[in-house]
């Protein structure tokens, strides 16, 4: 999940590296809210090569969920 990890770091600069585990819930990311969620989606689109502007990750969404979504869209998480 190197691409997704990079997208996460860009969207949440103060996120600790050891926090990047598949079970991480997005709501546990520092500064997570509906506005930073848009930043995350934009970062994923840029880094993972997918179009997912309609995707709205929820508070309960985990990193593994996001990775699955990227794979389903043909991208590389």
């Amino acid at each position: 999940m190197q691409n997704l990890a990079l997208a996460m770091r860009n969207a949440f600069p103060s996120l600790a590296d050891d926090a990047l585990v598949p079970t991480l819930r997005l709501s546990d990311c520092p500064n997570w809210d509906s506005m930073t969620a848009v930043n995350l989606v934009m970062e994923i689109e840029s880094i993972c090569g997918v179009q997912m502007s309609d995707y709205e990750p929820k508070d309960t969404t985990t990193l593994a969920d996001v990775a699955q979504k990227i794979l389903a869209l043909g991208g590389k998480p």
Partner: protein
Amino acid sequence: MQSQSPSVQRHTSAPAYILATGHAVPNRVVANADLTQFPAAMLPMIAVKTGIRERRHADAETATSDLAIAAARRCLERAGISASALGGIVVGSCCADKIIPPTAAIVHDALKAPTSAFAFDLAAVCSSALYALTAAIGMLPIAKGPLLVIGADTTTKLMNPKDFSSYPYFGDGAGAVLIGGAAHADKAWARACVDETILGCDGSGQHVIEIPAGGTREPSTTCTDPKRLYFRMEGKKVLEFAIDKGAMMIEALTAMAGGRERVHAAVLHQANINIIYGIADRSGLSRERFPVNLDRYGNTGAAGVFIALDELARGGPVPAGQSVLLAVFGGGLAWAGCRFIAPHDACPRADASASPVADPTTTQGA
């Protein structure tokens, strides 16, 4: 973050008088729909989350001082006072034209203020304008004339255009207030009740709103991550802090005014409509008493409270004995509040409101 009570200063110095106000914003209107760098489906979220429908962006050639100078000129013209009579200029801003000199010196030069007039900047992020006003009020006794206090920011120049959590919030602008001592009392459209101010800062929240690099800790010349040169903020923490401190200040200032029925208006930092409504609802004052311009200008940083004050002043007289409360909050995390009182059926001088000041910048005012 610490939760200590803020300091409430009760000055013993003579009161200051508000002689005039003015403001300037860039001509370039940027509507939410114009923010095409973001997914179109997400753009409606901006108005819902912030109340902002459009903002003004300074163009590449326009710096903070250009807006400050335009606001200052309008203010001086409305007061009928020449810049040659000024005793000092204080610019509250975190978006200086240059690291050195202070923006106030650039304004001083453009206005051709006398060398006896001091000029300095004061930086307290979005609280800068009221910190500057408080400082100026305290310095009135040593000033050689009226003092020009300006809140001005071009924050959009310091922002990441692709950061959806901050970029849509902000706009550029400047507001100015001219204050004088007792000698100018007869010209005042409102008396400033300057013996009651609230100032505070919780430095433990210093990282909540920041531009991490570009200063002496991490100079731009050594910064390897360009994103660290951009403004960033933690929205949820800011929201909670702002409503908490804003409501605290309005409650304290309302008590100083003698009760809600003696509050004509409460002019807040124009950051987010949900913050303004949150403070209004907690204060017990009706939302109608909280002027709003963020829908048109966005968060103009230090300028917002003075722009809103100027618009309030243009809107009609403040009834005798009624108070106008001002409260701001922002990075630091700092906050500031103060109270103005209308000593009579005061009304802004109307001579200049209908004729825009001729100005070489690309700015416009109300």
